[in-house]
């Protein structure tokens, strides 16, 4: 390890780094703007200047930019030299000539890197007497505010947006001190990672528009570590909450990134960042509701919908307790429907309550089968589930059938980084340091091989070296052919036109050192998953080394649910049959739906059957939806940010999320409602009293670990609620949290006693441990002098390393099992009727909860149907034509979009979009297309 001297002190430092990141790693404060730990150095801002000395005799030294200076063994540097300090001050003074100094009205204020760096340089006296340049700001969509006058032109925004995230519609325009960072024309930013601009921008040019609507300063936010619930990647987040205006209940204000080296690193997707607002939306359930029978209107009754009225929670709990009691006496059948978006604890609690035989996964059989396939594949010792840094370092990638840009956006961003690995290798050969970003990027643009096979264009097409579009069968056949080629066999079932491509891809994958295969549940095709597994195991066999295979699940706890529900026959499709049998036994049935919207899971007819066959429908959920409308009893369940729980991501990593604030109204965790009911249950037995005794999240974790040995890690994830550091719990509020006595002063001047968190050693107050280095539960990343998120480096093991005191989650320990040899499915002969409907995912619209966040709802596309250009021509369909699709018993109206990539005879239909949910539950399936007649008429 090289040794360097900084201001007379010797340090052993990591080789190959630049001086700036070295200084920061060593804890030496050095101001900077353009450098970013994930994006490297470009030397633009000149803020990180230090003095470099030639040798011990050199007392004058030379000013160098530390971000552009490779450290060398024996190097002599000074950060504190007067000349360097003076120069750094001059940079601040230069930057401030046009900065409006509008900190009091700027939303960045209090977490502004520019404020921090200005303070750090110690420059206080601005001598500029001229006018300031002003810019016109742009409308950039519902997520991002634009205030260009604050810009200090560090170029981080365009470097992130274009270079890192592959966006094209934000650029540096103009030159000199008029340089403008914006779009050529006003409009919604197109890239799905635009929200990171808020964190990447060192000042208040790009701020969170959704946060603006209920803005408070960073120091007034209460926060705790959380997990993004909008897909199965498991990104770590730091949501912030603060008392609201009405009723002073805490409300969720925003979500920002919480660094997790193995998953999200420094960046979140826009669905994860802006999807949070569903918890504040009008559809949110905050009270206990019971169906009323007195005021039902006929048409509503005909739809089976109920009119609900609020009832006291006690009454509802007692009703549920009665149901439990009847079930215990064998007079009632209790069915539980779990959910992939509910935590392990909630699913487990319901499963215990109703018994494993009566616990249904809350998924259609097909989706449950896919999850079981994923689980089975991941158990094979030849398969390795890669972390984000591993994905980024892959040197050849095949994406089979999965549109990861939309189903696992953060993984897509990682793939985008992998596309530059040839460039990085070339840089190594030319001895250009990897961190010297612009110099690496100027190298030959020949990207690393990334092959994408999917239903239509993917968000990664711009970096794909080969593309294949086909139906699920064709993609699976292509995957099997690749597997055979890799295994050195002659493929049977690939059409000659694709054979050459298959040969080339298989050669590239075979020759690569770190191949990666990506697939997932989004394609909703078991054949594709099997083909991906065949391919990955073929590569593993060839290399005698496990092959990286990333399989995306669709929801935050999909894989967790699959662990609790291993019986493939416990799917929703089987529930009507089971309920009917029960009906014959003359026992009434109660169905408890846990945080699940059944109309998104199965076709309308099946959902209707479940609703009407159940004698009692009890729903615990976050939002009003089609299922709650049919319920007899509705309990308001806590959202991720309001509760603690465990989820398992696509990689089998169990992670815990913590309550950021107490949910408003009567909201509490679903398992607590169930435990309450057990506590009130007049019939007591061992089971009921065990459930009634659950008081802490930890109790459930223990129970899960006991019941499921493979999930043992769940009990070891985090400190229990009685854990203390120096006798203290961890504070959710910063030590500058304001108004704790004043905020309730209209009611009482006495200071409220903070609510006790029964689940975690975290307090809902400012009195406790504040240091992220002392507690993994600290989500408020802050350090003296570092008020912005840039404080993060203070808590990492080196730049880009792990959190020193981190809680990275634990991998569940699944018994390994080798996969069978899967053969390609035999394709049915003959012409099929109608069109093949293929599920198409969108970052905005396909996610259930995020679609209810107002900002995201405003950018969800109209329900569309992608139709091949030739099919469209044949049927005389133009873009924008209204079409109707019938599939099963459902019919949906959509707008035609012409596609050049969707296969002939197929239609791409949106998955999970509001109003057309049934399409998502059915595709891939055959459906009929009908042209809707435009209303003609008028005066002519």
């Amino acid at each position, binding site marked *: 390890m090289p040794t360097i001297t900084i201001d007379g002190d010797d340090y052993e430092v990591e080789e190959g780094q630049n001086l700036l990141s070295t200084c920061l790693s060593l804890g030496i404060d050095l101001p900077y703007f353009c450098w970013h730990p994930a994006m490297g150095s470009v030397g633009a801002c000149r803020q990180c200047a230090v003095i470099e000395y030639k040798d011990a005799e050199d007392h004058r030294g030379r000013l160098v930019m530390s971000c552009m200076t490779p450290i060398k063994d024996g190097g002599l540097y000074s950060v504190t030299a007067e000349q360097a300090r003076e120069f750094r001050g*001059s*940079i601040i003074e230069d930057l401030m000539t046009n900065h409006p100094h509008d900190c009091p009205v700027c939303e960045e204020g209090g977490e502004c890197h520019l404020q921090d760096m200005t303070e750090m340089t110690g420059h206080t006296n601005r001598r500029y007497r001229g006018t300031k340049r002003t810019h016109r700001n742009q409308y950039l969509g519902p997520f991002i505010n634009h205030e260009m006058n604050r810009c200090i032109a560090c170029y981080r925004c365009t470097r992130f947006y274009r270079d890192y995230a592959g966006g094209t519609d934000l650029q540096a325009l103009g*030159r000199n001190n008029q340089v403008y960072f914006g779009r050529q024309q006003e409009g919604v930013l197109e890239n799905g990672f635009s929200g990171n601009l808020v964190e990447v921008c060192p000042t208040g040019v790009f701020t969170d528009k959704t946060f603006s609507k209920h803005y408070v300063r960073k120091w007034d936010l209460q926060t705790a570590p959380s997990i993004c619930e909008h897909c199965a990647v498991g990104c770590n987040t730091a949501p912030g909450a603060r008392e609201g205006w009405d009723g002073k209940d805490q409300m969720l204000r925003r979500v920002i990134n919480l660094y997790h080296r193995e998953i999200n690193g420094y960046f979140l997707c826009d669905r994860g960042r802006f999807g949070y607002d569903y918890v504040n939306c009008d559809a949110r359930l905050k009270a206990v509701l019971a169906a009323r029978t007195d005021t039902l209107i006929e048409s509503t009754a005909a739809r089976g919908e109920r009119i609900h009225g609020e009832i006291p929670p006690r009454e509802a709990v007692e009703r549920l307790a009665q149901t439990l009691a009847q079930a215990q006496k064998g007079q009632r059948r209790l069915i539980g429907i779990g959910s992939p978006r509910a935590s392990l604890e909630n699913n487990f609690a319901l499963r215990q309550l109703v018994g494993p035989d009566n616990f249904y996964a809350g998924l259609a059989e097909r989706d449950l089968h896919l999850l079981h396939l994923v689980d089975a594949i991941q158990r094979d010792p030849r398969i390795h589930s890669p972390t984000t840094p591993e994905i980024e370092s892959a040197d050849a990638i095949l994406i089979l059938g999965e549109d990861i840009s939309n189903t696992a956006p953060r993984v897509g961003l990682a793939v985008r980084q992998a596309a530059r690995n040839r460039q990085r290798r070339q840089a190594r050969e030319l001895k*250009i340091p990897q961190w010297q970003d612009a110099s690496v990027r100027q190298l030959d643009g020949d990207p690393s091989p990334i092959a994408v096979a999917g239903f239509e264009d993917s968000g990664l097409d711009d970096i794909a070296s080969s593309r294949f579009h086909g139906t699920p069968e064709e993609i699976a056949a292509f995957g099997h052919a690749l597997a055979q080629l890799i295994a050195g066999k002659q493929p049977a079932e690939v059409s000659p036109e694709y054979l050459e491509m298959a040969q080339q891809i298989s050669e590239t994958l075979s020759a690569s050192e770190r191949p990666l295969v990506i697939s997932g549940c989004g394609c909703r095709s078991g054949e594709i998953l099997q083909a991906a597994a065949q391919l990955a195991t073929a590569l593993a066999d060839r290399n005698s080394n496990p092959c990286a295979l990333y399989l995306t699940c669709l929801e935050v706890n999909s894989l967790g649910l699959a662990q609790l529900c291993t019986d493939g026959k416990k799917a929703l499709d089987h529930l009507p049959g089971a309920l009917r049998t029960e009906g014959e036994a003359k026992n009434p049935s109660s169905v408890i739906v846990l945080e699940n919207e059944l109309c998104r899971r199965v076709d309308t007819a099946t959902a209707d059957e479940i609703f009407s066959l159940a004698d009692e429908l009890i729903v615990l959920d976050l939002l009003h939806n089609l299922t709650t409308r049919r319920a007899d009893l509705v309990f308001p369940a806590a959202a991720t940010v309001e509760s603690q729980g465990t989820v398992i991501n696509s990689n089998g990593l169990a992670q815990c999320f913590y309550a950021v604030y107490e949910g408003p109204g009567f909201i509490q965790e679903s398992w607590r409602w169930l435990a309450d009911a057990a506590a009130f249950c007049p019939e007591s037995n061992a089971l009921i009293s065990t459930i009634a005794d659950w008081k802490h999240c930890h109790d459930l974790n223990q129970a899960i670990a006991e019941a499921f040995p493979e999930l043992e890690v769940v009990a070891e994830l985090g400190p229990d609620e009685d854990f203390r550091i120096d006798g203290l719990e961890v504070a959710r509020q910063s030590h500058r949290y304001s108004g704790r006595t004043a905020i309730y002063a209209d009611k009482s001047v006495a200071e409220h006693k903070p609510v006790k968190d029964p689940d975690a050693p975290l307090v809902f107050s400012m009195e406790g441990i504040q240091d992220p280095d002392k507690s993994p539960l600290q989500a408020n990343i802050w350090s003296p002098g570092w008020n912005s998120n840039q404080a993060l480096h203070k808590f990492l093991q080196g730049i880009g390393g792990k959190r020193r005191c981190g809680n990275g989650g634990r991998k569940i320990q699944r018994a390994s099992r080798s996969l069978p040899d899967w053969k390609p499915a035999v394709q049915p002969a003959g012409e099929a009727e109608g069109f093949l409907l293929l599920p198409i995912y969108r970052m905005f619209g396909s996610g259930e909860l995020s679609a209810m966040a107002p900002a995201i709802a405003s950018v969800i596309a109209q329900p569309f149907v992608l139709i091949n250009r030739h099919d469209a021509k044949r049927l005389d369909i133009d873009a924008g034509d209204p079409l109707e699709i019938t599939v099963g018993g459902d019919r949906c109206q959509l707008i035609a979009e012409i596609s050049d990539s969707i296969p002939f005879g197929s239609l791409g239909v949106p998955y999970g979009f509001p109003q057309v949910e049934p399409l998502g539950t059915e595709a891939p399936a055959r459906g009929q297309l009908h042209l809707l007649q435009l209303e003609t008429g008028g005066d002519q």
Partner: protein
Amino acid sequence: MLTNPLTKNIGPQNTAIDLAGYRAAGGYSGWRKALAGDPGDLVKMVQDAGLRGRGGAGFNTGLKWSFVPRGDDSPSIKYLVCNADEMEPGTFKDRLLMERDPHLLIEGMAIAAYAIEARTAYIFIRGEYHTATARLEKAIAEAREEGLLGENILGTGYSLEIHLHCSAGNYICGEETALLNALEGKRAVPRAKPPFPQVSGLWGKPTVVNNVETFCNIPHLIDLGVDWYKSLGRGEDAGTKLFGVSGKVKNPGTWELPMGTPIREIIEVHAGGMRDGLKLKGFLPGGGSTDFLGPEHLDLPMDYDAIGKSGSRMGTGTIIVLDDKTCPVGLVLNLTQFFARESCGWCTPCRDGLPWAVKILQRIENGEGRLEDIGLLQEQVRYMGPGNTFCALAPGAAEPIQSALKLFEQDFVEHIEKGCCPYL
């Protein structure tokens, strides 16, 4: 003996010499000679001849070429680029060469491309140089027609294409790495060095960028040899150079003269001396981004090192003369406005420091300055010093300001004390 290799084909008429005329005057014999030899020898020859880059930095051209990786292991694609984005204030030498003798440039580029084993070359020409563009286009076509460019040149198996690219207009494109970015269709922002373009240049390939005048030195150097070339200079440096004079002299213009010609001779003999009634107060020896020198430096030879030692730079060798009736503050303001406008906006001292300097100078010129503004200005130019900024634009822009503050401090003080420009 040939003493004016750069301008020997340039007559009084504003026309370009065509291929036939150029060949009749011995043109392309350097090219034939080069093609018969080993590329490595050419590099050595140019290096030995001591040809220094005429764009302003004065780096040994052959040495620059020698950094390009050679041999079978080296990248198969290499590029040669001609920097014809002549935008230095007060500089108009490349224009003359391109408009009047375009084949000289083409021949020089062909030899250079052959020497570095490049098969594609670009001329990045200033957008406003319409005449030069048209004449170069014609000349390139002529040379292709005759087999002097294109596939399998003169049966040697060597192929070379020269493409002409018109700049969209930006002073920073004269900075070789910003030029490369612009040529790639990116923002004209300089690149970090290292890596140098010779290792990773255009599209990440080894690339040599030379000035028009540098290339024009090559054909005769190759044709007539190192000794001849060295003998041309009068002082330390080899060869001849186009020197120019602008300002209130009797005969402003540009002339080919031996390196090392004394400044006094250029101004007094070739430019005819100051106009009647005017005295020389100072001069910028090599374009707008060089330090002012005073009358005491008139006897210096125009050699890179000699001018360098005096505290300025020879730059492009085109002298801007300041007389005693022209306001030096106004002159410096004018120059600084240009540089501030042309800053690419990449690094802070240049992007924000130069406009600030303009505002201070404007205030002083308007008679609204304060005495502390002089210190502030001095500080600003110090912060823009070499190494402090990303490229050489701001340090260059700082040179006339910092030297004017030294040489003409009294003028600045007078502006402030009188509350107006004393030259009005």
